[in-house]
């Protein structure tokens, strides 16, 4: 446990060094969030009755999405891992007295956390003080804040577990490009990254909410504003937990298969 913790710390501190990138990232994400909200505002003005959620719930959704982008974005991948697999350097990693799955999992977790920590607070602060209707609302109660944080953590874990499956696929395909680009485009949409899932037709929403992708962005951000509450909340959290377990087991299984037949290429 201690070994993984120190890997986590190293990665985390390393990530904190990129401050200029973080400032630029914040500017980008802030602009993005602002434009998205303006876009939804225009739609809701055209037809207020068609809004599937309150506007301040939507605004909170967008701002949280921008603030915690690093938690969910599937395109934040560790190129070193792809390179290790492709070049065969992964053999060195296998010599260490560590479980490779855990090691990579922890590294990814640290990378995402450090990125988010640098960026989220200024974005959240500005989002809270903006004028209505653009502003983010405060959580309804301490209890709902705690539930949100639990769901957020689960969402982060599900995202990392999904990325682990992507990394491990490279053992079989050797070229990460294809799987990567497909995953990015599909997951972004299916997780509610482009438009919140409730904007979709209800029948489609029913199926999409069951998929693992909805457990990433969609669930935590709707839990925050109380758009998911009551029994639905319990169900959603359970589903997040279920998908986390499934993805971790799948990743571990694939890794085991990959490592029994791994061919390290050349000297």
């Amino acid at each position, binding site marked *: 446990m201690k070994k993984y913790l120190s890997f986590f710390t190293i990665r985390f501190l390393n990530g904190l060094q990129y401050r*200029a*990138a973080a*400032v*630029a*990232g914040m*500017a*980008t994400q802030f*602009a*993005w969030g602002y*434009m998205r909200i*303006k*876009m939804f505002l*225009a*739609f*809701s*003005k*055209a*037809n207020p009755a*068609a809004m*599937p959620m309150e506007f301040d719930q939507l605004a909170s959704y967008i701002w949280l999405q921008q603030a915690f982008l690093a938690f969910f974005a599937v395109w934040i991948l560790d190129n070193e891992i792809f390179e290790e697999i492709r070049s065969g350097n992964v053999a060195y990693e296998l010599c260490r007295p560590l479980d490779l799955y855990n090691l990579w999992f922890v590294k990814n977790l640290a990378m995402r956390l450090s990125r988010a920590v640098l960026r989220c607070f200024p974005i959240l602060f500005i989002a809270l003080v903006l004028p209505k209707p653009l502003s983010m609302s405060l959580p309804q109660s301490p209890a709902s804040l705690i539930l949100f944080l639990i769901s957020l953590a689960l969402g982060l874990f599900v995202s990392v577990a999904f990325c682990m499956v992507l990394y491990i696929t490279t053992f079989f395909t050797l*070229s990460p*490009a*294809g799987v*990567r*680009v*497909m995953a*990015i*485009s*599909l997951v*972004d*949409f299916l997780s509610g990254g*482009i*438009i919140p899932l409730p*904007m*979709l*037709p209800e029948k489609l929403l029913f199926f999409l909410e069951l998929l693992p992708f909805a457990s990433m962005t969609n669930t935590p951000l709707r839990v925050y504003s109380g758009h998911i509450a009551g029994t639905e909340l319990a169900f959603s959290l359970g589903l997040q937990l279920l998908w986390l377990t499934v993805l971790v087991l799948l990743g571990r299984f694939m890794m085991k298969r990959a490592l029994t037949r791994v061919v390290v290429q050349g000297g």
Partner: protein
Amino acid sequence: MTLYMKYLAIHLKSQMQYKVSFTLNAVGQFLIAFSVFISVFFMFSRFGSVADFTYNQVLLCFAIVLMAFAISECFFRGFDTFPSTISNGEFDRIMVRPRGIVFQVLASKIDLSRIGRLVQAVVVLIYAIPTSGVVWSPLKVITLVLMLLGGIAVFSSLFVVYAALCFFTIEGLEFMNIFTDGGREFGTYPLSIYGKEILKFFTFVVPLALFQYFPLLYLLGRTDNLLYMFAPLFSLLFSLPAYLLWRLGVKRYTSTGS
């Protein structure tokens, strides 16, 4: 020009060596654009219209912006990946060759997999042209062509600005995404829907609206003012400061010496 054609042929050949990777990349480009398209579709199936624009009218906008972006990204990729050209010393080699610098950077990378986006834009445009309710006339066809040219000019200039800024700093240039990728995303809808201030910004500072919103009004017959039709020509002016900034950067350049 013949030299550029030779470069183009070389890039084509080399990218065709990895056919699977090329195809997957192109398909991926298509899918990324498609996920934006499908969200536009669902937004309209729920809300019906936005700020007096219908689904098919917005598609016209979407297609032109996407097409301009895809073409710019394909041919100006050398500027988009310029930080690595500087850091790996490739730019030093460019400086000592007896050809124009801009030309060489242009020719250094041509990313044909962007065709995935282009295909999508063409399909959507073909669908939108008859269904958008535009009464087509020779003048309107010219407007459409001007919009596309203006769009290519603005996006290309943005890539040049990005590359030029690399001469001054390489840290924190991520913010340029607001205008390049952002321009493509925000430009999905007529820029007026974001409010007056945003529209002003995208008219006078980064002139996306000059090839998008204003000529669109002319296309849709909401104004007969020919100034709106020729607005894309003004957006061409944006390439001037971009080029000057680039020149300034080149002048300042000192090699990293590696």
